[in-house]
C-alpha cells in the first residue's frame, strides 16, 4: 500500500509541478487551457439547456422520448470512453517505459496495473468528462434540480458509469493480448475494430431513432402507454440505460424508482473492479510478458513490405531533401500499426456516415428544416475533418521525436520543413473533406449551388483546421512522446480540438441566415439567387485565412525553438 501511495504521490507532485511552472509557455498553456475549456464548458452547458428546453417545450417530444435520446447519447459516450481507454491502454499498460521500470521494483503486479489504470483513465477521459459534466449542469438547470442532485449524479452515477467503460476496456484488452499472441496483433486489432463498428450499428439498428420517433409521435400525446414496447430487451442491461433511467426518474422527483438504477450501476462497477483485480493478479504480468515476447517475435518473422518506388536507394522522384522526407514519413507511417489502423478505422466511420446519409430522406419541405439538415451535415463533415486533423496533423511535429537532431543538424531550413508538413497535411485533409462534402451534399440535395458552396467552404475549413492543428502541434510539441495517440489526446490537443469546434460553430452561424433565405426562395418560388451564398463564403474565407496566418506564424516560430 505504501508503494502505491508513493507512486501516486510522485505522479501528483509531477502533475502539480507542471501546472505551477512559471515558464512563459506553460503559463500561456494553462491560461489558454482555462479560457478554452471554460468557454467550451459554458457552450455545452448552454447548448444542453437550450436543446432540452427546445425539445421539451417547443417540439413537445415528451420526457420519455427525450430520455431515450439521452440514453443513445450516453451509449455513444460509453463507447467513446471505452474505445479511448482501450486505445490508450495498450500504450499505457503494455508499452510504457514506466511499466518496465516499475516491473523491476518490488511492487505487486496488480498495483502496477492499478497505477496505470488510473493514469490511463484520467488521461483518456479528461475532455469527455468535462463535456459530460457541462451537459449534466445544463440539463439539470433546465429542471431546476437541487445542488445535491449534481453532486450525487457526478460522483455516484457518472463516475461509476465511466469507470465501468474503463474497466471493461482493460479487461477486454488483457484477454485480447493473450489472443494476440496466438493470431498476431494486426488481425486482432482488425477484429476489435470490426466488433466495435458492428456493436454501434446493431445498437442503432435495434433502438432505431427514426422508428422510435415515428412510433411515439403516432400516438402523441398519449405516449406513455407505449413505454413498455419501445425498449429493446437487451438495452435494459446496458449502463447507459441505467443512467438515463436514473435521470428520468430523478427529474420526476421519484427517488424510489431512480435509486435502483444507481445501485445497479454501483454493484456492476464493484463486480467489475473485483474481476479486474482478479484478472490483473493472474494475467497482467503474464500478458505483459506475452506482449513483449510477441513484439520480439513479430520482428523475427517480419517479411518486409517492398514498394520499389519508395525504396531509399532507388532513383529520386522529387528534389533530394523532399524525397528523403516523403520516403521517411511514408515508411514510418506504414510500419506503425497504430497509425494506419487508426486511419482505416476513421475512413470506415466516414464511409458509414456517407452510407447512412444516403438512406435518409432529407429533402424537406420547410426552408428552416432544410437549412438545418444541410448545416447539421456540414457541421458533422467539419467535425470529422477536425478529428482527422487532430489525430494525424497535430502530432506531425512531435513525431519528429528525439531523432529531430538529425534533421536540425542537417542543411534543411526549418521553415521549409514546416511548409512541407503543412502542404502534405492540407492535401490529405482537404481530399477527405472535399470527398465527404461532395458525397454528403449530392445525397442531401443534388443542387449545383449547394455542392459548390459545400466544396468552397470545406476548402477553407480544411485550410483553417490543418493550419490550426499543425501550428498548435508545433507549439505544444512533445518530442519525447513516442505514441501519436497520446500526443493527439494531450492537453494542447484537447484545447486545439475545442477551438476547432468553436471555429466550426462560427462557420455554421455565418451560414444559417443566408442558407435559410436561399432554401425559402428555392422551395417557395422554385428559383433562388446565388448572391445569398456569396457573402457568407467571403466571411468564412476571411476568418479561415486569418486563422491560417495566425496559426502558421505560431507554428513556424515554435518549430525553430531550441531542441
Amino acid at each position, binding site marked *: 500500500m505504501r508503494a502505491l501511495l508513493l507512486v501516486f504521490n510522485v505522479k501528483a507532485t509531477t502533475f502539480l509541478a507542471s501546472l505551477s511552472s512559471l515558464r512563459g509557455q506553460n503559463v500561456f498553456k494553462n491560461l489558454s487551457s482555462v479560457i478554452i475549456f471554460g468557454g467550451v464548458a459554458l457552450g455545452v452547458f448552454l447548448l444542453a439547456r437550450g436543446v432540452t428546453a427546445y425539445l421539451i417545450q417547443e417540439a413537445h417530444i415528451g420526457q420519455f422520448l427525450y430520455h431515450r435520446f439521452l440514453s443513445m447519447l450516453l451509449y455513444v459516450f460509453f463507447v467513446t470512453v471505452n474505445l479511448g481507454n482501450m486505445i490508450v491502454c495498450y500504450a499505457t499498460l503494455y508499452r510504457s517505459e514506466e511499466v518496465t521500470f516499475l516491473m523491476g521494483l518490488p511492487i505487486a503486479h496488480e498495483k502496477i496495473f492499478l497505477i496505470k489504470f488510473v493514469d490511463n483513465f484520467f488521461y483518456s477521459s479528461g475532455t469527455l468528462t468535462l463535456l459530460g459534466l457541462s451537459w449534466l449542469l445544463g440539463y439539470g438547470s433546465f429542471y431546476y434540480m437541487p445542488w445535491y442532485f449534481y453532486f450525487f449524479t457526478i460522483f455516484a452515477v457518472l463516475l461509476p458509469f465511466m469507470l465501468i467503460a474503463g474497466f471493461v476496456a482493460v479487461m477486454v484488452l488483457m484477454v485480447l493480448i493473450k489472443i494476440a499472441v496466438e493470431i498476431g496483433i494486426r488481425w486482432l486489432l482488425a477484429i476489435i475494430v470490426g466488433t466495435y463498428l458492428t456493436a454501434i450499428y446493431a445498437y442503432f439498428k435495434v433502438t432505431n431513432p427514426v422508428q422510435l420517433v415515428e412510433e411515439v409521435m403516432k400516438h402523441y400525446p398519449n405516449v406513455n402507454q407505449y413505454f413498455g414496447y419501445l425498449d429493446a430487451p437487451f438495452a435494459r442491461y446496458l449502463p447507459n440505460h441505467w443512467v438515463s433511467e436514473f435521470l428520468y426518474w430523478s427529474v420526476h422527483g421519484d427517488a424510489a424508482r431512480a435509486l435502483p438504477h444507481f445501485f445497479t450501476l454501483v454493484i456492476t462497477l464493484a463486480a467489475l473492479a473485483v474481476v479486474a483485480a482478479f484478472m490483473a493478479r493472474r494475467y497482467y504480468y503474464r500478458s505483459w510478458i506475452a506482449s513483449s515476447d510477441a513484439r520480439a517475435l513479430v520482428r523475427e518473422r517480419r517479411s518486409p513490405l517492398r514498394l520499389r518506388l519508395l525504396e531509399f536507394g532507388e532513383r529520386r522522384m522529387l528534389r533530394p531533401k523532399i*524525397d528523403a522526407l516523403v520516403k521517411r514519413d511514408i515508411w514510418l507511417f506504414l*510500419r506503425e500499426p497504430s497509425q494506419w489502423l487508426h486511419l482505416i478505422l476513421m475512413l470506415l466511420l466516414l464511409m458509414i456516415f456517407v452510407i447512412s446519409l444516403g438512406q435518409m430522406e432529407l429533402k424537406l419541405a420547410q426552408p428552416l428544416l432544410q437549412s438545418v439538415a444541410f448545416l447539421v451535415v456540414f457541421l458533422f463533415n467539419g467535425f470529422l475533418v477536425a478529428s482527422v486533423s487532430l489525430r494525424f496533423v497535430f502530432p506531425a511535429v512531435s513525431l519528429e*521525436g*528525439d531523432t529531430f537532431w*538529425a534533421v536540425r*543538424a542537417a*542543411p*534543411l*531550413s526549418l521553415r521549409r520543413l514546416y511548409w512541407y508538413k503543412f502542404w502534405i497535411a492540407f492535401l490529405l485533409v482537404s481530399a477527405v473533406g472535399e470527398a465527404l462534402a461532395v458525397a454528403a451534399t449530392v445525397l442531401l440535395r443534388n443542387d449545383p449551388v449547394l455542392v459548390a458552396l459545400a466544396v468552397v467552404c470545406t476548402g477553407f475549413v480544411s485550410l483553417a483546421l490543418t493550419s490550426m492543428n499543425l501550428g498548435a502541434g508545433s507549439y505544444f510539441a512533445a518530442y519525447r512522446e513516442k505514441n501519436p495517440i497520446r500526443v493527439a489526446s494531450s492537453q494542447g490537443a484537447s484545447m486545439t480540438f475545442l477551438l476547432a469546434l468553436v471555429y466550426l460553430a462560427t462557420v455554421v452561424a455565418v451560414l444559417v441566415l443566408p442558407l435559410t433565405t436561399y432554401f425559402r426562395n428555392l422551395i417557395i418560388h422554385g428559383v433562388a439567387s446565388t448572391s445569398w451564398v456569396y457573402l457568407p463564403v467571403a466571411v468564412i474565407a476571411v476568418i479561415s485565412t486569418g486563422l491560417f496566418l495566425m496559426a502558421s506564424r505560431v507554428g513556424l516560430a515554435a518549430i525553430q525553438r531550441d531542441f
Partner: protein
Amino acid sequence: MIELRSVVKKFGSFTAVDGLSLTIPRGQFFGFLGPNGAGKTTTIKMLTGLYEPTAGACLINGHDVRRRPLEAKRSFGYVPDQPYLYEKLSGREFLYFVGGLFEIPTATIRERIEELVERFELQRFIDKRAEEYSQGMRQRIVLSSALLHDPLVLIIDEPLVGLDPRSARLVKDTLKQKTREGTTVFMSTHLLEIVEELCDRIAIIKDGRLIHDETQTAARTFNGQLEAIFLELTK
C-alpha cells in the same frame, strides 16, 4: 575552422554558458572537458544550431550558425550524446535519409554506405530496424551518418559511450585518420585517457566559463597528468 565569440546561453535566470570564446584551427583534434552540468552539451548544441545563443556567435568554416545555418550545417557532421534513430527505419535507410538531406546523389550515398559498413563492421545489422539495435550499434550508425557527407568539421558529444573495446578502437582510429586528412574534430567526453591519447588540445569549462586551455605537443604531453589537472581545476 570553429570559432566561438563570447557565446552566452541563458535559460531563464540560469546561465549555462557564460561568455565562451574559442578558436579551433583546421585539422586540430580538440577535447572539450568539464564536470557534469558545466555547459559542454549546451555549447555543442549551439554549435550545431539546436540551441540559439542568447549572445555571441558560433562560426563553422566561417559561417555564422545563426545567420547562415544551411552553409554552416553543410560543413559539419554531428554525433549527439544520445544516439537516437528512427526506430522503424533500418540503419541503411537512416543513412540514405541523412544523405538526402545533404543532397548527396543516390549513387554516391550507396558507395559511401558500403565504405562505412566496411569500416564500422555494420554488415550484421545495417538492414535491421533500429528498434532492434543495441546502444553500440546505434552509436556506430550515428557516427556513420556524421561521416557520410565527408564533412570538414566533426562535432562529437561522448562518442565512445556504449561501445565495446573493438568498436571503440575503430572509432578512435577513424577520428585520428580524419584529423590527419585535415578534418577538425570537436569532441566532448569524460574519458580522460581517450583525450590524452587523441587530442592535440584540451579546454576545460566549469559553470559555463573556460577555466583551462592547453595544447599538447610532442615536447609537452599530458603524460598521464590530465586527471590530476582536471580534478584540481574543477574541485
